[in-house]
């Protein structure tokens, strides 16, 4: 048995990982047949000794401060940033729930049983949802509320050293921000928010954030138009290729409208769909055209990429990108923005942006899932559900379902187009995160992809296997519907890592593809059962 990780371990000055995760300690997956041989050896083979390691993987890359003065400056910036998080002027968006989460935790640990990362790690203390929250809470009582002997006796204390600060920053990236714990908490304490605030402090005050989210994420998006690096010429070139492919495949002429002023709907996809899952934006084009919707896409900077990575780590970046999206809609004079199958974009533009946009930037914004429901349930397409004669299960993206309460629309669609739809257990607002939430799906270096395939995504993989337990033989083709790009990327990586397509015939994809696959007016066989 491994030793129990303690708060004080984070302050250790040696260069050893605080916790070591052994694949043998993880809860076994109930999957028939032997697991692929690589799994036992694949991880954690790549231990990384840079900085003050946490658990054998790493997402934050920053130079190790060489001198005491440099270390003190970083700790000072951390402490002043901590104070700013608790002032109305500096953190008006999240101050109220943060204060509630600081002051009212009863330490009952109900949240721990709700956390997939904690459970799937074999209950490693480091990943207990209250572990980082409690350290952060102690720092709050000592450095924001004034501390003192009574406070130290009442709340406990941790010593602030650079190793502690550095490891706490990294630990903020072992939580998917799925907020299942906040839902389970009888008081509403939000450990996901605490992890988010730590990430924010690091980015906004120390200039430290994962490269995938910042330098090649939100910065790249604002510079060239998309975090994929696609500029306007590239996206137009790709979209016309998709139009050609869709026309060929469906037998119906497909043309994506661009930059149409006064259209009813501005559709913004996650641009990753265009590159990696072109059948999804293609399916939307087929559906919207068939339903007679007046719609357009935008080739403006950020207008063709709904992603807003700031929602995971930096409020200023979030606000900049949300504003760009709203400005584009305003310039195009559209009636509303519809966000495609992308969960975090729902949170950023449909929810958080409500606190940022004012005046004529308050343009109506809608989820693609309710639009699809209105089209399908409204009888605007001729459908033949027997074309979807294969088992389908549904993954609930946390940002769409738990956060927004969009639970039924996607199910109404599935019941109408997929006769063999079955639920996972649990589902709806009680769902488990795919393990890719909060940007993990786009982060992968230093063994992190293995970590999220083995630990963060383990519960979801088990749920998928359980949902299809009556038909796991590879000859029966099965489909996990994941209406969110981030979830889809994670589920792809999960299925590939555990060799599930080959061993069990489980494929993944979006919701719009299932609709087109059931449309009478297009050629059959829209969904291709080829691994990608």
């Amino acid at each position, binding site marked *: 048995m491994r030793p129990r990780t303690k708060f004080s371990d984070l302050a250790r000055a040696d260069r050893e990982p605080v916790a070591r995760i052994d694949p043998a300690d993880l809860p076994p997956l109930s999957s028939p047949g032997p697991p692929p041989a690589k799994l036992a050896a694949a991880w954690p083979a790549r231990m990384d000794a840079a900085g003050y390691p946490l658990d054998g993987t790493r997402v934050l*890359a920053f130079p190790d401060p060489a001198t005491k003065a440099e270390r003190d400056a970083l700790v000072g910036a951390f402490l002043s940033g901590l104070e700013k998080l608790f002032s109305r002027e500096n953190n008006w968006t999240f101050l109220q729930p943060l204060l509630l989460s600081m002051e009212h935790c009863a330490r009952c640990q109900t949240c721990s049983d709700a956390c997939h990362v904690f459970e799937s790690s074999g209950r490693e203390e480091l990943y207990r949802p209250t572990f980082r929250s409690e350290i952060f809470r102690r720092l709050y009582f000592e450095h924001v509320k004034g501390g003192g002997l009574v406070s130290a006796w009442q709340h406990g204390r941790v010593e602030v050293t650079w190793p502690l600060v550095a490891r706490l920053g990294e630990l903020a990236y072992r939580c998917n921000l799925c907020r299942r714990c906040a839902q389970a908490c009888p008081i509403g304490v939000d450990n996901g928010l605490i992890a988010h605030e730590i990430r924010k402090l690091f980015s906004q005050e120390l200039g430290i954030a994962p490269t995938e989210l910042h330098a090649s994420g939100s910065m790249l998006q604002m510079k060239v138009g998309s975090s994929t690096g696609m500029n306007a010429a590239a996206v137009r070139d790709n979209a016309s*290729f998709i139009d050609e492919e869709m026309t060929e495949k469906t037998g119906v002429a497909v043309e994506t409208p661009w930059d149409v002023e006064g259209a009813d709907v501005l559709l913004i996809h996650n641009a990753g769909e265009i*590159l990696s899952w072109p059948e999804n934006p293609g399916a939307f084009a087929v559906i919207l055209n068939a339903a007679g919707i007046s719609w357009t896409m935008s080739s403006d900077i950020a207008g063709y990429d709904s*992603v807003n990575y700031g929602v995971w780590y930096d409020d200023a970046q979030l606000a900049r990108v949300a504003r760009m999206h709203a400005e584009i809609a305003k310039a195009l004079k559209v009636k509303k923005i519809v966000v495609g199958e992308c969960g975090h974009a729902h949170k950023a533009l449909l929810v958080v942006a409500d606190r940022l946009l004012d005046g004529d930037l308050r343009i109506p914004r809608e989820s693609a899932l309710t639009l699809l429901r209105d089209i399908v349930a409204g009888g605007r397409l001729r459908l033949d559900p027997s074309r979807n004669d294969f088992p389908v299960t549904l993954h609930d993206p946390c940002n769409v379902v738990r956060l927004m309460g969009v639970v039924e629309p996607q199910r109404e669609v599935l019941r109408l187009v997929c006769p063999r739809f079955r639920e996972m257990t649990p589902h709806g607002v009680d769902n488990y995160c795919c393990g890719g939430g909060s940007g993990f799906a*786009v982060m992968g270096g230093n063994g992190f992809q293995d970590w999220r395939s083995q630990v963060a995504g383990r519960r979801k993989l088990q749920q998928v296997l359980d949902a299809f337990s009556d038909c796991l033989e590879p000859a029966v083709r099965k489909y996990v519907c994941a209406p969110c790009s981030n979830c889809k990327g994670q589920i792809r990586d999960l299925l590939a890592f555990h060799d599930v397509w080959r061993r069990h015939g489980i494929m993944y994809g979006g919701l719009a593809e299932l609709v087109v696959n059931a449309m009478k007016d297009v050629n059959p066989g829209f969904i291709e059962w*080829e*691994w990608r």
Partner: protein
Amino acid sequence: MPIVELNGRPYHVDDNGFLQDPQIWNDDVARDFATTEGIAEMTDEHWKLVRYLREYYLQFGIAPMVRKLCKETGLKLARVYELFPSGPANGACKVAGLPKPTGCV
């Protein structure tokens, strides 16, 4: 920035093992990086994919859509995975000296 030694030559790579400076790429670099993918010998099919990726990258600054890659080279995706076991994005792009694809791909 990590340095890896391939066939006796040192390369600066990112955390995912992708070549840091795409400018220094040439056929020898491709052969060196192919060893990290378990490719003993670069065949005509390997080169066809790598050259297409390279040309597309020089024109658009990013990697092409996988579907486009397959259509333009005439290779099925399953064949691409046989040639580059870790796939078009992580395997073929690495050998072609492209930066690791970014964003939700």
